[in-house]
């Protein structure tokens, strides 16, 4: 039953299973285990990025396709939901049609880019995605009458998903049972469902074919697979998943802007998360996203503490100054790629007896 839920793709390593369970339990009970607004924000971000990073791995890890347009699809989903909520009001209907429209638009874009450029060399596809994504970001910031430009969009969401909505009056385990909590669980369960769906796709005959195409497209053709169709379908599926992750973010933040969805920085973060976790295994997305976002959120604080402690030592205190957190993230990244070239998951699986 559980194996079936995981599509037969079990973690296959004791330590990996343990780590995944820790992440799962922490996220499932985050509001109760880590009370406080900031930790809930972090938990929701982790859920959403697991979906986003997994959907990117569908391309990079499983299909061997390098795309720089993933944040564009993420943004299309977010803006779809955001625009629906701001134009037709904070109803569930707006939520549904906005999300569906975002996903469809993302799919159409991905189909067009795929059919146009996946026939030729891989580098060409990467360049086309880069160009299209940049153009899209410019377009969004220019069309401020629609998108709010650089300021983005603030909007209301259905009342049941906001802190103002109280489910019960008393606190349970010291936690207010309100709309924010419901919103968190919407994000959590939607992310879990999307993750399991992707796990099924990569373990389906289609997913296996993607790996074959990645390994040797020339031979895949010779045994009858139409490589372009497979690559294009993978691109479309990945775009739809990214758009749905974007919709979740739009609901969670009640704000959508270029900085939270479209920026190149996020694109690079996604790349790093996939590589750190381990390409070509969706569990890598879970660990990569979790570790990266935790580091991103708490490394600065940790370094602040370290800087204070070492304030007497001149060089060290400058090195660990909170502003340098990105430097340290870079160092962590290089170390992890050096020691775990196949990512954390690859390392853990190789290490099993």
């Amino acid at each position, binding site marked *: 039953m559980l194996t*079936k839920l995981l*599509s*037969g793709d079990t973690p296959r390593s004791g330590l990996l299973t343990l780590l995944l369970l820790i992440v799962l339990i922490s996220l499932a009970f985050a509001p109760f285990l880590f009370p406080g607004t900031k930790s809930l924000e972090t938990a929701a971000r982790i859920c959403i990025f697991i979906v986003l990073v997994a959907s990117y791995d569908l391309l990079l890890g499983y299909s061997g396709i390098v795309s720089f347009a993933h944040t564009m699809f993420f943004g299309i989903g977010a803006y779809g939901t955001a625009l629906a909520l701001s134009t037709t009001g904070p109803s569930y209907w707006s939520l549904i049609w906005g999300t569906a429209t975002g996903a469809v638009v993302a799919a159409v874009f991905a189909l067009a880019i795929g059919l146009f450029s996946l026939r030729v060399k891989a580098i060409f596809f990467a360049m086309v995605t880069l160009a299209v994504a940049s153009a899209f970001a410019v377009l969004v910031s220019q069309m401020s009458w629609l998108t709010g430009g650089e300021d983005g969009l603030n909007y209301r969401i259905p009342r049941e998903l906001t802190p103002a909505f109280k489910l019960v009056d008393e606190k349970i385990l010291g936690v207010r049972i309100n709309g924010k909590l419901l919103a968190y669980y919407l994000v959590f369960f939607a992310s879990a469902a999307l993750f399991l769906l992707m796990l*099924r*796709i990569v*373990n*389906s*005959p*289609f*997913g*296996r*074919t993607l*790996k*074959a195409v990645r*390994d*040797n497209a*020339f*031979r*895949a*053709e*010779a*045994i*009858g*697979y*139409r490589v372009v*169709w*497979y690559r294009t*379908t993978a691109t479309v599926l990945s775009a739809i998943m990214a758009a749905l992750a974007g919709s979740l973010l739009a609901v969670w933040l009640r704000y959508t802007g270029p900085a939270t969805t479209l920026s190149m920085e996020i694109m690079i973060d996604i790349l790093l998360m996939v590589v750190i976790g381990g390409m070509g295994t969706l569990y890598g997305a879970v660990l990569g996203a979790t570790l990266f976002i935790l580091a991103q959120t708490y490394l600065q604080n940790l370094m602040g503490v370290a800087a204070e402690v070492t304030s007497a030592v001149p060089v060290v205190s400058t090195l660990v100054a909170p502003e340098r957190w990105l430097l340290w993230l870079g160092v962590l990244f290089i170390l992890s790629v050096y020691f775990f070239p196949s990512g954390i998951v690859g390392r853990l699986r190789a290490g099993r007896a």
Partner: protein
Amino acid sequence: MAEEHPILVTSDLTIRFGGHVAVDQVSCSFDRGTLTAIVGPNGAGKTTYFNLISGQLHASSGRVTLNGEDITRMSVPERTDRGIGRAFQLTNLFPTLSVRENVRLVAQSRARKGFDLFSIAESHVELLERADHVLAEVRLIDQADQIVSALPHGDQRKLEVALLIALGPQVLMFDEPTAGMSVDEVPVILELIQKLKADMDRTILLVEHKMDVIRSLADRIIVLHNGELVADGDPAEVIALPVVQEAYLGKAPEAA
């Protein structure tokens, strides 16, 4: 046999790479149920001729027809669907996947299940059984769970043949299938080709340098030289021709 329609015909088939004509107006037809050996020195255009038939390269001029249908402009998978299959001279596998998965992918392609998105691949037991059946035939079943890139060269050559057998096409093209194999592995492959040949529906094209292999398997030999078809006929006759003797001069007949 001559009365029957040939299954595969190439007419004036030509390809130029810049000024170099690698295959030069080769007209030849292949009958159902025959094994034709294609010989010629290195660089004669044998592999290129195969590439033109299976679609990896497109002809500059001339035509390829299969069962009377013009396939000259078709893509590789379209030709595969119509019954052309190919094993490669340079081993050409899915290196990060297991041996069994390599063959299973072929069975999956034949069963047209590549676009099945929502079932678990491993639950299609018939595809796994088909893969194991073929692996047993080529004596690779004990290595089924190994990753291909870790396989010794000889086993990779066997797997190369296994993929073609799993594909089970009407026209099978082998490009030096035993090259680089150890002496005790060669008979396994030759036996398999013999067995495929016994199945009268199949048409086999075999590029091979080893004359003893050709003598024992071929119904007919064609000779390519500088891209041109220079001889075509009975094995004994063709081997005796001066042009063939010449072509193999300075090159040990047993060398790969």
